[in-house]
């Protein structure tokens, strides 16, 4: 802000205002205002006497503004139509429309309602004129003879006032423009925001739709998994039932074949050449093998059909029974049986007995080549669970084939090397899985094998 000037003449000139803070192009504003300050204003001089008018014109010249002269009230009114005036110097004594009447008319026009009017009047008429004049809206009086300074001063006041007003109007206009512009900007931004918002909303809706889609797909997939699982369980059951009925139906005719074979061997032995007798023998032995196989398959398929009867079973008792019967079978051999104490478990006694019977008889079988046999039974902790193990120092197997151990008909040794149908371990595995437990094995070829199993709590569905 600049210092306001001290000279009385220019007292009314307002200091150049600071540029509007948010107005676009503030330097532009300064130029406009400067120009506004320098722009000339119009002064209307209304006097019928040209010599008087001329004298006043001369005085007013130094103000550097536009002085327009009108000879009559009528002419004045006409001038006022054409331009804006900062001040009107109005002679009171005029023929035709006098000053007062003119002032009245001026005041009646909206455009000139507030234009300052300075009456020019003679000293002698002052008192009467003044009151009338003021009531007509005059702002000041100048007495004739006119004192130049007085005239200049009074007029310049209104000139400055007009200029100030003009500046203010322009400022206001600028402000309004700027305001409009920023309004426009605000509107634009608002529209952009609305658009962005809309876009966002659409994205969110899209995302929600996608999520819903995924959720539905996941639910559908889950349902399909459930359906497939049920189908699988049903198929498994059908397979077990099929295995059972096939095995069962095969038993009777096979039994008959074996019987007739035996009869032939008995009665016709003397009649048959040695080769034929041998063939008969092979028929009998293969038939017996088939009988065993079918019996094991039947056993295997039955496990699925029967429910699990869990009771608290002392596993030591089971092991003792199995070992006792195996000892009877292996009378000639030297077998060291090491049995650690085993826990009591909630399980199906007859099925778990089958497990021990199978694992222990396998241990006996695969230690045949050994002169010193050690078979151990014990328990250990695996992943916080109690696991039972059966260990032997027999021929073991190649761990490469560990995955095939529990498959039906899987044999890891050539048929004939060790008796067996290849169904036993599959049966054991099924029993364990029915209990919800796990079974696995560890072996080193020619060193021995260890079979581990856990007896789970929960029942696994047909698998």
């Amino acid at each position: 802000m600049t210092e306001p000037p001290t000279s009385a003449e220019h007292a009314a000139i307002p200091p150049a205002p600071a540029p509007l803070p948010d107005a676009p192009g503030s330097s532009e504003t300064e130029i406009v205002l400067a120009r506004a300050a320098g722009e000339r204003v119009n002064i209307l001089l209304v006097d019928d006497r040209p010599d008087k008018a001329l004298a006043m014109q001369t005085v007013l010249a130094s103000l550097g503004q536009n002085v327009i002269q009108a000879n009559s009230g009528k002419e004045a009114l006409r001038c006022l139509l054409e331009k804006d005036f900062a001040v009107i110097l109005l002679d009171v004594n005029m023929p035709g429309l006098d000053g007062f009447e003119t002032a009245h008319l001026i005041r009646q026009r909206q455009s000139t309602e507030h234009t300052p009017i300075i009456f020019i009047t003679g000293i002698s008429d002052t008192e009467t004129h003044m009151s009338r004049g003021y009531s007509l809206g005059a702002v000041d009086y100048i007495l004739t003879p006119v004192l130049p300074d007085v005239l200049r001063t009074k007029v310049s006041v209104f000139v400055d006032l007009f200029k100030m007003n003009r500046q203010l109007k322009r400022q206001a206009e600028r402000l309004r423009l700027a305001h409009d512009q920023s309004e426009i900007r605000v509107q634009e931004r608002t529209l952009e925001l609305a658009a962005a918002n809309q876009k966002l909303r659409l994205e969110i809706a899209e995302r929600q739709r996608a999520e819903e889609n995924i959720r539905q797909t996941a639910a559908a997939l889950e349902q399909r998994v459930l359906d497939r699982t049920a189908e699988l369980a049903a198929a498994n059951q059908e397979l077990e039932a099929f295995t059972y009925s096939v095995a069962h139906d095969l038993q009777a005719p096979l039994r008959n074949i074996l019987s007739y074979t035996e009869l032939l061997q008995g009665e016709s032995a003397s009649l048959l050449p040695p080769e034929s007798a041998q063939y008969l023998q092979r028929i009998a032995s293969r038939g017996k093998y088939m009988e065993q196989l079918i019996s094991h398959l039947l056993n295997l398929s039955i496990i699925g059909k029967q429910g699990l009867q869990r009771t608290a079973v002392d596993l030591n008792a089971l092991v003792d029974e199995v070992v006792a019967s195996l000892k009877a079978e292996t009378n000639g051999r030297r077998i060291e049986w090491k049995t650690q104490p085993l826990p009591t478990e909630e399980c199906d006694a007859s099925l778990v007995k089958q497990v021990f019977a199978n694992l222990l008889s396998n241990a006996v079988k695969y230690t045949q080549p050994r002169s010193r046999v050690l078979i151990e039974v014990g328990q250990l902790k695996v992943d916080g669970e109690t696991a039972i193990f059966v260990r032997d120092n027999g021929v073991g197997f190649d761990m490469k084939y560990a995955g095939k151990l529990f498959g039906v008909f899987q044999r890891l040794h050539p048929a004939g090397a060790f008796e067996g149908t290849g169904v036993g371990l599959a049966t054991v595995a099924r029993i364990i899985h029915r209990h919800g437990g796990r079974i696995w094995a560890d072996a080193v070829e020619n060193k021995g094998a260890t079979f581990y199993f856990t007896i789970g709590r929960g029942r696994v569905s047909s698998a």
Partner: protein
Amino acid sequence: MAKETYTVLLADDSEDDRLLLRRALRKKPRFALVGEVYDGEAAIAWLAGQGDYKDREKFPFPDVLMLDLKMPRMTGHEVLAWLQTRTFSNLRVVVVSGSFLPRDIARSRELGADAYFKKEAQEEQQYAMLSDIEELLDHAC
């Protein structure tokens, strides 16, 4: 009370099984095979002395019925059930079946069978079974 010989009625639909059991019975002098029927209906008719089997001379009431389970028209279990509605105090019933399913065994016992045997291929085992039946009959009251 023990008898010198026991008469046997055999109920089995399998020709082979009948033939083989017939041979096995021949080795046991204390058993006299008096008849063979092929299904449950015939077994009941014989035991009741009805229809074709009225003549007790030709179709004598047996000491022991050797009963197969799987037969057409009426099964062994159905025959057992019928027997429970009668009181033949002198009749022993032993089931001789190809099945060794626990539920078949249990059901037979429930229905009043005196013993249950699985059919065997080997003669030795058949002989052992007949010996067991002999003992059962000797000790029955």
